[in-house]
């Protein structure tokens, strides 16, 4: 029983991190249109919110939060990541916002696209 508890305390939860990232992006970017003067502020807010909440989880992990906001103009872009780490203990979440279904439902003409990656590297 104790071993299971220890395992839970020392591994991070994919769903939890997913939820934290989604909520942070939604809260900052909901119903905004791309504005050059404000983007830097939004992007810093997202990174800080996510990092703060991850630290509050209290797991023995180092975190890297990487956020990208791009104006929707029809240009193509590709993002790839490669990692050299412990595949059991470490992990990543990559969220692309908005998901196209979401945009159609809200009938919003989205002028921006956000890609947020969170990497969790185990310290033990």
């Amino acid at each position, binding site marked *: 029983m104790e071993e299971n508890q220890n395992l839970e305390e020392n591994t991070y939860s994919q769903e939890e991190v997913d939820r934290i990232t989604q909520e942070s992006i939604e809260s900052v970017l909901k119903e905004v249109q791309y504005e050059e003067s404000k983007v830097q502020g939004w992007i810093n807010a997202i990174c800080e919110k996510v990092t703060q909440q991850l630290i509050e989880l209290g797991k023995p992990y180092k975190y890297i939060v*990487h956020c990208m906001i791009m104006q929707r103009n029809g240009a193509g872009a590709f993002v790839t990541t490669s990692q050299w780490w412990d595949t059991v203990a470490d992990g990543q979440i990559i969220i692309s916002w908005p998901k196209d279904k979401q945009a159609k439902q809200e009938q919003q003409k989205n002028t921006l696209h956000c890609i947020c990656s969170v990497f969790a590297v185990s310290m033990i």
Partner: protein
Amino acid sequence: MDSLGNQVSFNGPLKNEVQKFVQQTLHKELDKITYDHTDAQTRSNKICDSILKQLTTNNKNFKFIVNCLLMQKAECGLNISGSCYWDNETDGSLTIKHETEAMIGIVNVFACAL
């Protein structure tokens, strides 16, 4: 890079070596190439993998994350930011941008000491 295999901190001579290598890789892969969405995925994978391979063959003291963005050059705004919660003495990151006529390549390398 061989002589730097025993470095404990990413911030120092190791960072400079990595920077040189990443710049070379980007030059090699992106110069004189036009953006093609069908092979951009393969190209960015190749960039990531070759950088990661070079990093890991010589340095066993770190966990690495390599992030690559390839974007077609167009009239659009782009903002990127990163936030890291780690040990500032030993861990570090590097961001390299390479711009050509047809596209922009941005590579981030994050290193966490073991």
